[in-house]
């Protein structure tokens, strides 16, 4: 029941119902639980990725609230040191590894294929595997926490405190394995994004036309590829020291405690930008919709992203000034840490120019964007200050730093993220979030944020170190801490407001339509929510602002199969059509593989038998994953056109 194929120059008829049905059959997942488990649709996976990461955000937030409760007055006995140390470790680990990085990647995995105009990510099964592994790793950490064997050595897990001699039990092992999980997940996501961006862009979307969010995700993905191996290697050394008695960090046997810090921060500093760059991408991509003009200075923005990514690998030692680094080295890292403010400054100036020369609309996402600039610049200027060695030696490991990086990470990443929730919620669900509740959400967050974190600058000067479960009344830190704790309550109320908004709007929010913000990127060219195949006909891009530059008609592609899952591959630079590649069916094997790897990692903490058992399970899962099914044979026997060019 296929209609005659469309040819070049023809207008797509209004009635494409039959074609849609056919595509729905090919790309849709089975109904029910089985379909839910086996799906490889990037939007399904992206949605649950975002939801899961957000649940971790809530958990991390509850931990933060508990800490603020404990610190609200001196010598409070609400939470003892043992619990407190677990809680702050969980807070940091959760927010960095289970919330911030995954949610940015998840947004990328959901929106990058839509923004570049393709049907799915490059390796759909790998994508599903990544999500399941993330879920298993995160759940493992929390199960351990609820069993009172949560890590208690800080999210940075400095040796020797986390090593075999001072970290008894399985707590630090839990931390190390959680890192292994999340690291693999992050690298898997990064490879998905890189390949999708390089090979699956819509025809005509040459590199200089990619939406800035996609650029940001691409740059971030590259950073992940080079940064994550550092923490993975370090956590492997730690696990080996703890489990089989190697001596990487044992000074008595030629090991070195600073080795850990170098490895950790070689990852840890880029990590900050792995979180921050996608957030700047979100801002640059949302801003045009609310200023009614393309973002100012596209080339400068892209160059800024790339230069930040390079510089981010050259300043890790500024986390280690107090360890007594030779002065020459310290000066070098001070200089690089200061320099990174220049590209970041350029980004901010470009946003200001965009706002200045546009016609702003103050919808909730725009408020979050402006709040972001307000807060991030505070965190930015304190960041320049702590690049200074002498100044850092005073405030390092104090609440001043806590204040600084919460301005950078909450102001710089969570604010854009909340803006993004308001902005893209209609695309994902088909309904708008309430603007009225949204304004409450924003103002409560904004006020709470400043109340909580601004006083911490002064606490740092007054000598309050980080990671203390209590303090003496004689220190005089009580009132500022109380103010900060009240601020935390305000933030909590803001987050609750957001949850209320989601629940209310899911049921009764205004129906969004395809493009409620009149925005310019490709995801708005399809329905809300998008169909499993994203676009009935893959779009052809005419300019940087895809939907504004296309004129009255949208140019589209025909010729990808409607009989099987197939994506169009284009050339990496110019996005000229190059080949059609078949995409795999839904499969349960990614889940099986994730379970096998999960068994391997988790049991490795307890017994070396994990290796053969987990290995065997993984082998089975691998076979199931790769072995062609009858469905594969069916769909691929059809006239394959083989090209040997470039082989």
């Amino acid at each position, binding site marked *: 029941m296929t209609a005659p194929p469309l040819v070049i120059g023809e207008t797509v008829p209004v009635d494409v119902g039959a074609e849609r049905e056919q595509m729905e059959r090919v790309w849709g997942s089975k109904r029910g639980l089985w379909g839910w488990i086996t799906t490889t649709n990037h939007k399904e996976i992206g949605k649950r990725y975002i939801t899961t990461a957000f649940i971790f955000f809530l958990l991390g937030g509850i931990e933060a609230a508990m800490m603020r409760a404990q610190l609200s007055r001196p010598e409070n006995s609400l939470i003892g040191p043992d619990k407190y140390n677990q809680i702050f470790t969980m807070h940091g680990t959760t927010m960095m590894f289970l919330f911030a990085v995954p949610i940015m990647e998840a947004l990328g995995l959901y929106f990058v294929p839509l923004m570049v105009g393709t049907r799915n990510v490059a390796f759909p099964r790998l994508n599903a595997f990544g999500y399941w592994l993330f879920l298993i790793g995160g759940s493992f950490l929390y199960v351990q926490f609820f069993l009172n064997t949560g890590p208690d050595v800080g999210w940075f897990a400095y040796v020797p405190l986390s090593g075999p001699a001072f970290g008894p039990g399985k707590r630090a092992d839990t931390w190390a394995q959680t890192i292994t999980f999340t690291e693999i997940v992050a690298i898997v996501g990064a490879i998905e994004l890189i390949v999708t961006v390089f090979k699956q862009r819509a025809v005509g979307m040459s590199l200089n036309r990619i939406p800035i969010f996609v650029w940001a995700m691409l740059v971030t993905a590259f950073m992940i590829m080079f940064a994550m*191996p550092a923490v993975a290697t370090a956590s492997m050394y730690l696990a080996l020291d703890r489990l089989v008695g190697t*001596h*990487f960090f044992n000074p008595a*046997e*030629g090991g070195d405690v600073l080795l850990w810090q170098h490895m950790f921060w070689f990852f840890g500093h880029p990590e900050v930008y792995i979180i921050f760059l996608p957030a700047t991408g979100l801002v640059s991509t949302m801003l045009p919709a609310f200023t009614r003009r393309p973002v100012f200075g596209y080339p400068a923005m892209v160059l800024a992203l790339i230069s930040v990514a390079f510089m981010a690998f050259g300043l890790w030692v500024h986390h280690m000034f107090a360890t007594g680094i030779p002065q020459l080295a310290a000066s070098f890292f001070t200089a690089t840490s200061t320099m990174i403010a220049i590209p970041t400054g350029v980004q901010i100036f470009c946003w200001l120019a965009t706002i200045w020369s546009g016609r702003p609309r103050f919808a909730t996402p725009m408020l979050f964007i402006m709040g972001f600039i307000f807060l991030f610049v505070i965190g930015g200027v304190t960041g320049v200050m702590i690049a200074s060695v002498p100044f850092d030696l005073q405030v390092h490991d104090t609440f001043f730093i806590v204040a600084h990086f919460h301005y950078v990470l909450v102001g710089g990443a969570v604010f854009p993220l909340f803006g993004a929730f308001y902005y893209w919620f209609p695309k994902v669900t088909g309904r708008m979030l309430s603007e009225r509740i949204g304004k409450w959400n924003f103002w409560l967050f904004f006020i709470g944020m400043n109340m909580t974190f601004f006083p911490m600058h002064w606490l740092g000067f007054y000598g309050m170190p980080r990671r203390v479960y209590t303090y003496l009344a004689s220190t005089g830190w009580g009132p500022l801490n109380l103010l900060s704790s009240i601020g935390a309550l305000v933030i909590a109320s803001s987050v609750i407001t957001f949850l209320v908004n989601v629940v209310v709007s899911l049921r009764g929010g205004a129906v969004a339509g395809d493009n409620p913000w009149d925005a310019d990127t490709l995801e708005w060219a399809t329905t809300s929510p998008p169909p499993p195949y994203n676009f009935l006909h893959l779009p052809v891009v005419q300019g940087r602002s895809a939907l504004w530059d296309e004129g009255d008609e949208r140019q589209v592609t025909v010729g990808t199969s409607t009989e099987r899952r197939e994506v169009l*591959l284009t050339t990496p630079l110019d996005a000229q059509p190059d080949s059609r*590649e*078949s995409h795999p069916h839904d499969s349960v094997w990614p889940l099986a593989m994730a379970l096998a790897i999960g068994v391997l990692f988790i049991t490795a903490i307890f017994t070396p038998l994990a290796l053969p058992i987990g290995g065997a399970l993984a082998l089975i899962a691998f076979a199931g994953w790769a072995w062609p099914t009858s469905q594969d044979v069916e769909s*691929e026997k059809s006239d394959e056109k083989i*090209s040997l060019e470039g082989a």
Partner: protein
Amino acid sequence: MTKRERVTVDVTELPTIVFGSRGLLWWGTWGFAVAEGMTLFLSIATYFYLRRNFQTYPPLGYPQPDWFAPTIGMAIFLATCIPAYMLKKSAVRLDKDAATRWLVILSVCALVLCGVRTIDFYALRVLWMTSAYGSIQWVLLGFHGSLLVIEAAEVIGTAVLFIKGPVLPRHFPDACDIGNYWYFLVLSWLPIWFIVYIGPRIW
């Protein structure tokens, strides 16, 4: 609401099976190779960082690692580039029989190399738990060894598929990428072999 669409590009005539950097898998393979290469690079960096903590190398009281057997092993490793190359060649020719043959040969090579790797461990003449020197020597070997084992599983699995299973056209580019990854394995072994077995005699 929906805009009028006009067809301007027809991709019907494009190929559905492509080789090398035109396909997705090539990019994915190298993506993982880069991440793994970074891990190896950082392990090598660790080696030199820890080196500073010892006056002599190997540290006082430890014998030099045995260099002879590992060097033979390295030569075998280098030689396996030939079946990897031939595998790629035959895959590009879409020659199923030849590809199967070379996959089997590469599988045998992979198994032999796994055996050689156990000899490599013996040749270290130090245990991982005696000092940081032993630890990093073992980890360098072990990490590359685990990549080798995983790749051996993939090569053998693909060989089985080519012998028994339904071989689809897309498996030819896949086989090609196996060859590419094999090059990465060999290439990354060279510096490790050098710093683990030859290095202690030099620095």
